Each structure stands twice: as structure tokens, then as C-alpha cells.
């Protein structure tokens, strides 16, 4: 399902709960799939005793991947032309994340309609963990 330019306006939003009560196992699953085995994400003993953090925490790229799921569910498959984020706060086991996209502009690019989106993913305390932007191709 792709978005139609004719049915979309600036300020429209879409949000999804992209993870509830994030488990350490899901973080391990992401380490295995992505190949990033940094023990800060999977090894509680190292992270607490050697690195000095309160617990392991999620890969930034896991949070970006979770946020991307909300985006592709909304704009459709293979529709993104750009997707970029800043990681503004760490994501911890037990976090519940809501990802939201807002239409910032609808414009033409290379003769095709696209939407520029602003993105924000927040945790259960309302703290932003990812902020970013994306551009997606629209149907007329």
C-alpha cells in the first residue's frame, strides 16, 4: 500500500508502537542478525562491571530498524528514498517505544511526487530516543 499525494496533507501523522517491554533476547537477536556483537548490547557483566553502565542497552541501529518498520508500514514497500536519524538517548531493556512520522512537505522530485517526513521515536517516559527525517515516493 503506497500513500497517495492526493490524499495526504502537511501535518498528517502516523504512529505505531514498535516494541513493548524490549527484551534482552531481542537485543541479542539483533546482534546476531546485524553482526554487531559489541558486548555493551549483550553482555550485562561487561557492561555493568567493566564499562560502567547500569545495564546493557539496545544498538542504535535496532531502534532505527524499529522506527523504519513504522515508516515502511505507512509509506509502502520500496518507497523510501531517504531515511536518516540521530540517536538522542539510549534505549534500555524494558523500554516501550512509539515511533511517529509527520508530513513536513509534499513536493515534486525528478517529476515524481514525494513526501518529506519528520520522525520521532519516544520511550514510555516521553523521552525522545531517535529523531530524524525521511523522504518517500508517493502515488499521484
Amino acid at each position, binding site marked *: 500500500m*503506497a500513500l497517495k499525494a492526493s490524499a495526504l496533507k502537511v501535518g498528517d501523522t502516523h504512529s505505531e508502537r514498535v516494541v513493548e517491554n524490549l527484551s534482552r533476547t531481542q537485543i541479542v537477536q539483533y546482534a546476531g*542478525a546485524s553482526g554487531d*556483537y559489541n558486548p555493551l548490547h549483550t553482555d550485562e557483566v*561487561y557492561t555493568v562491571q567493566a564499562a560502567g*553502565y547500569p545495564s546493557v542497552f539496545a544498538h542504535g*541501529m*535496532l531502534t532505527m530498524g524499529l522506527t523504519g518498520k513504522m515508516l*515502511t508500514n505507512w509509506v509502502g*514497500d520500496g518507497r523510501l528514498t*531517504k531515511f536518516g536519524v540521530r540517536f538522542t538517548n539510549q534505549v534500555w531493556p524494558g523500554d516501550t517505544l512509539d515511533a511517529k512520522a509527520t508530513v513536513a512537505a509534499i513536493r515534486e522530485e525528478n517529476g515524481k511526487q514525494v513526501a518529506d517526513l519528520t520522525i520521532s521515536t519516544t520511550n514510555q517516559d516521553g523521552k525522545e530516543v531517535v529523531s530524524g527525517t525521511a523522504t518517500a515516493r508517493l502515488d499521484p
Partner: protein
Amino acid sequence: MGKITFPVEASHIMMFARAVGDTNPVYHDAEAAKKSEVGGVIAPPTFAQAVAQFDPDYHLRPKAGEKWFGSAKGPSGIEGKPASSGGLHAEQHYEYIRPLRPGDVLTVETKPGKTWEKESKRAGKLTFRERVTEYRDQKGELVMIARGVGVTTERPVDQG
């Protein structure tokens, strides 16, 4: 840094999509994907990061015969390892020319970008390093550009 060959495989895409909790059939069901707008299985938008699996020198993967800084008998397998392993991911940006598909064999080249510093109350001196990565397909065509920014902190990020 040399060029990396990154074969894109269906089972790897399936595992990656599972890890981000994405049940969209276009990432794991070839039949359903064939009937979709994209005409076949594609990779999710952040999949390109998994190129790390194919980097022979990737420093965040334990390697046979080498000491690993994660815990074993003690909290770290490398004694005298500084308290903060330092590297955190600050930003990631992608430009997509086309989706990645199983069967693609990508050639991936990373070049260093800008470096800058900033003072932070929560983590001391921050050093930011940018890396720009180009993904080219088996025809030599550019399919994707990634720009990552890593940050090393002077001390662990204060959670206060």
C-alpha cells in the same frame, strides 16, 4: 579500508526482519512478495548495516584465536581495558536508489568523512567521526549511500 563483498541472501533478510520485529511478508515470503508492488523479496531499510557480517576485520565480532573484550571469567577478557569502550552511534543516514534484493552481490566501500569535537556535561569530551559508505551492485551501479556518525566519549554517558 578495503572494499567488502556483501552477498544479499534471503535467509539473512528474514533473520534481520525478525530481529526488528517486522512481520511484513515482503521480507520473508517469496510468494506473497511476488504479488506485491515490489515484485519479490526486498531487504528492510536498515538491512545494509549487516554488511558488518562480511567485513573480515570488523572489530565488534569475536574472532578465533583473538582476545575478546567482553566478559568471560572476569568482566572483560582484556585486562586493563579502559572503563568505557567508548564508541557509540550518534547518527545514521541512508539514501536509497533501489531496494536491496536476495541475489544482489554488493561491493561496499567506506571512506572517512569529517571529524569534530564537542564538550558534553553528560559524557565529557565527545569526538565525532563521519563515515560514508557506498553500496554498488553486480553491474557496478550505485544502489545506496550510507553516512554514519560515531562518537567516542570521555566517560560513560551519565544517566542522571
